[in-house]
């Protein structure tokens, strides 16, 4: 059995992550959980960048750097998001997405 891992395998993983992330976002009601799901999406792309760089274009570092920046920015985003979610919690004492539907129509 050939255990060599191809680029495709990585992509399958990243795609599964992406879909999990999206699915999680769709289904989880807790805002923190949705935040985690978004992280999955972002990480799926980071994997993509790393894998493409490593396997397809090994001579350069663009993908790696992109992945690094992506991680950093995702962290920043998460921080802000959590801050705002806390703010929501302070105001209405709930963090379920179904509870923040005051603005609609």
């Amino acid at each position, binding site marked *: 059995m050939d255990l060599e891992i191809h680029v495709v395998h990585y992509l399958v993983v990243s795609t599964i992550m992406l879909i999990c992330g999206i699915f999680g976002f769709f289904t989880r009601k807790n805002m923190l959980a949705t935040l985690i799901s978004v992280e999955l*999406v972002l990480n799926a792309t980071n994997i*993509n960048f790393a894998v493409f760089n490593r396997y397809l274009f090994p001579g350069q570092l663009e993908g790696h750097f992109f992945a690094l920046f992506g991680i950093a920015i995702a962290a920043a985003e998460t921080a802000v998001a959590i801050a705002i979610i806390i703010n*929501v919690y302070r105001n209405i004492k709930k963090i379920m997405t179904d509870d923040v539907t005051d603005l609609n129509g």
Partner: protein
Amino acid sequence: MQQEVTLALIILLMLVADLFVKESNSKILRVLAYVLLVVQIAVNIVPAETSAFEGMYHSTQMASVVKTILSLGTLLVFMQADKWLGREDTSFKTGEFYILTLSTLLGMFFMVSAGHFLLFYIGLELASIPMACLVAFDKFRHHSAEAGVKYILNAMFSSGIMLYGISMVYGTCGTLYFADAAAALTGTPLQVLAMVFFFAGLGFKISLVPFHMWTPDTYQGAPTTVTAYLSVISKGAAAFALMSILMKVFGIMVEDWTLLLGIVIVLTITVGNLFAILQKDLKRFMAYSSISQAGYIMLAVMADSGQGVASLVYYVVIYIVANLAVFGVISSIEQHSGGKVERDDYNGLYKTNPRLTFVMTLALFSLAGIPPFAGFFSKFFVFASAFHTGFALEQTGYWVVVFIALVNTIISLYYYLLIVKAMYITPNDNPIPTFKSGVMERAGLSICLAGVVFIGLLSCVYQYLTDTALLSWVS
């Protein structure tokens, strides 16, 4: 590069100033912000083509002009924010407001002058993360927080999708430099997918249908000044960025993205209009209006020509002044009447505040595209550019899109007139009482009004933009 550097310096200066200025003296900060922003505009008034970081940063003359326009718009927003920032519950956050706003502006600068997807991505995030803070700025209003959370979650999701698209570009091209990627792209299905994903990310910022769903909620919940900023500056920058990337990077897939745009434009304008008709809350109403306006802006992108570039920037300029005039009036009334933003509150406004009503009327007419106000000219040129391309390519599909857009102007006229009707015609026993707005608000509105009236009539603006567009986009 000069523009970004000076802006970054300003941000640092404001940061330092914020540290040392006492809360009670927040006025100093406001003055400082005006002065610095004026200086920023003044020193960068001459557009220049610059390149840095080995081409990761590449600012064309047009981009430079756009940046100046964005700075000007920001200045107008600041002027409108004057009263709001002076309020007790926000004055202690004055410095933060400026820093956050200017940071997003810096992000937009990078966005419009990126030469590499990484820089573009950083710019985009720099523009949207502080924006989330701004949206949730009114800490004790839960609508503000709700708007903020909707914005940030949607933004994260969309940036995830966009990043996925960028990763596909990287995977198929092996480079993230715009110029190299453009050469390497061939239009395979995977690349089409990448393009759509990327498009969705920017479509989110411009609030194109179906990526627009956050817009009304966020616009309604955010502080009015921030809504104004979000609706014009952020949207304008994203539109320009989208256009330059579609034209520069995805040039090979022009047929794909014009079709994509065609569908999206029709959807955007129609859906925006259909929703706008029913809105009672003016901020929410303006959100839908801005969605449909975004559709018109995209017509210029669809044109895919120098004429289109000039028309787009021209449209953005006029959209900025007109929309800011409307938001200026809305915020002015909101601040002076204790938070009234419903359309019914405006009934009979003409009797008590004729001048504000007048500004509002002209601005709405401009948005509806009625001559002799500027909006008419910008709409005309946008239509002309899209029509021209359709003619040149002998594709009547362009004409159909233009036609649908034109038919939609009637619906939009209807809802703009509803506000005019409320202000002039609908009788009201207790209209909002007469008030005197602050110097800065008035100055801001006067500038907007002048813009609404004169930018269209004075052809030099369009001429200048066309010349610049030709210089930047010799294709």
